[in-house]
């Protein structure tokens, strides 16, 4: 019998702690599949964020470091400078990367660190219970935006990928989504490309992945995929390659 699908070897054989319907699990699988495809897990050091993916250090079959909130790109810089021949990646949420860690991600991209950044944009702070993120949509409710995010005083969402793409040091930036199978496949190709480019020493690569947080959005998993990502997020966060050099 032909094997159609297998759990990637680079994904540890432990139950993930994510809520039902959360797409962090899919994103983890895509990273692990890329490490398998490039046969590089034994030469990879990942950096886990502070956020729902904080336990990512237990989920990948490779060496891992757990960073302070937002600091993963700085930690990855340190690792990469010591191990330039290793594959180094960060896996960060939108609070981690787009709020508290904005300086670290921007500067790592500016320096052209040859690392891969997997950026999970679920438009909310999942781990701490659904507070507003810089990526939260205007009008979207969060526990710290109980009336919905207000344009005046809270501003409109930050598009980090577009910002990062303006930096010469960033050579590959793509935004993908996990809201249906076709898009998951596209995301898979993007993640693998981001890692492959690092191995080819092509410089800083980042893949932004639009993700769900059904628990904090207060929606069923299917509603979350359809309603929020497809109808609400895509117009604000258009998919596609923002930069490839």
């Amino acid at each position, binding site marked *: 019998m032909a094997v159609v699908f297998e759990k990637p070897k680079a994904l540890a054989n432990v139950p993930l702690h994510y809520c039902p319907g959360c797409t962090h699990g899919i994103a983890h699988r895509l990273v692990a599949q890329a490490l398998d495809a490039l046969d590089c897990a034994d030469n990879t050091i990942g950096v886990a964020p502070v956020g729902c993916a904080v336990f990512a250090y237990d989920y990948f079959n490779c060496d891992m470091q757990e960073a302070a909130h937002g600091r993963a790109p700085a930690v990855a810089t340190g690792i990469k400078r*010591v191990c330039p021949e290793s594959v180094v990646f960060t896996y960060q949420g939108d609070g981690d990367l787009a709020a508290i860690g904005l300086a670290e991600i921007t500067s790592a991209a500016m320096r052209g660190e040859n690392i891969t950044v997997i950026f999970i944009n679920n438009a909310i702070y999942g781990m701490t219970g659904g507070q507003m993120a810089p990526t939260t949509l205007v009008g979207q409710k969060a526990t710290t935006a109980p009336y919905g995010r207000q344009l005046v005083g809270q501003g409109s969402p930050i598009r980090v990928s577009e910002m990062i793409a303006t930096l010469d040091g960033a050579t590959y930036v793509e935004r993908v989504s996990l809201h249906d199978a076709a898009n998951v496949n596209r995301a898979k190709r993007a993640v693998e490309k981001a890692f492959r480019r690092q191995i080819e020493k092509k410089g800083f690569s980042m893949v932004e992945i639009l993700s769900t947080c059904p628990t904090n959005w207060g929606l069923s998993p299917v509603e979350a995929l359809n309603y929020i990502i497809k109808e609400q997020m895509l117009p604000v966060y258009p998919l596609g390659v923002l930069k490839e050099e």
Partner: protein
Amino acid sequence: MAKVLMKGNEAIAEAAITAGCRHYFGYPITPQNEIPEYMARRMPQVNGTFVQAESEIAAINMVYGAAGAGARVMTSSSSPGISLKQEGLSYIAGAEIPCVVVNMVRGGPGLGSIQPAQSDYYQATRGGGHGDYRMIVLTPASVQEAVEMTVQAFDLADKYRMTVMLLGDGMIGQIMEPVDLDAVKTLMAPAVEKPWATTGMKNHPGRNVVNSLYIQPDVLEKVNERLEAKYREVEREVAAHEEMMMEDAQIVLAAFGTTARICKSAVRMARAKGIKAGLIRPKTVWPFPYAAFEKAAEQAQSILCVEMNMGQMIDDVRIAAAGRCPVSFYGRSGGMVPTPEEIVAAIEKAVK
């Protein structure tokens, strides 16, 4: 090699390279700019890495990553920058990563001044970051001692898997003195294996994880107990001090770093006036050489603590003296440096 005349900051940077440090991450701040500038020049010559980070926060997290991957790593800063590094120092302590941090203290609080001060004693010895943790804190009083302590700092860091801070001040950083850098090579301990480092699984058995998160409280409590046992061991093995004219001292000066140097002059001047003065100079302020001060408190009439701050180390001196003799204080702050004459006047007041 003969002795060469070097600025404290540059001598420390070169000593770090001698100690095998090939990765330096920093951010400019006076009065320690010569360290990043020297590293920017020297690291490429020794196949090392210099990164000017976007902030002290980033710099200390680069240290975390690089030292977590097993390298000998250093960063340096001065007071406001060291405040920003506290988050990283706490994570480094939790993850038990060895690293060396130089702090050329300047006057505070806030933006303060750029002149020498010792007002970050509490921050260095009590921990400015969160959680139950310690750093080894070495306090050089000359450029030669600074280079020796730099080498020692890397060895201690690796041995105990913890941060070692070189606590200087603007004076130690900026002063030019003759140093013998060859001599420090003989002080180096054999390299320590780092089987825990994240270098990729092909380089070690199993999977290595550098982490400070222990979500189960009972597990974290065990970690804290293990750390505490390590810190007790460091207290026994690492505490160091120097004594001057202590045999018959009736008034004992307590001072570290730059202030201790000035106190040495003051002790000689007081002796010339017939006052039996002596000095205890902690070379480590964590662990603090309590035993030396316990003994002094038995023998002397009083202890005079002299610092370039409003009175911080005096807390440790009082803990040691435990009421056995009076402990008084003389200090200058804000970047002001006490003169020997001022200290002699304080001695005369204390013995009256």
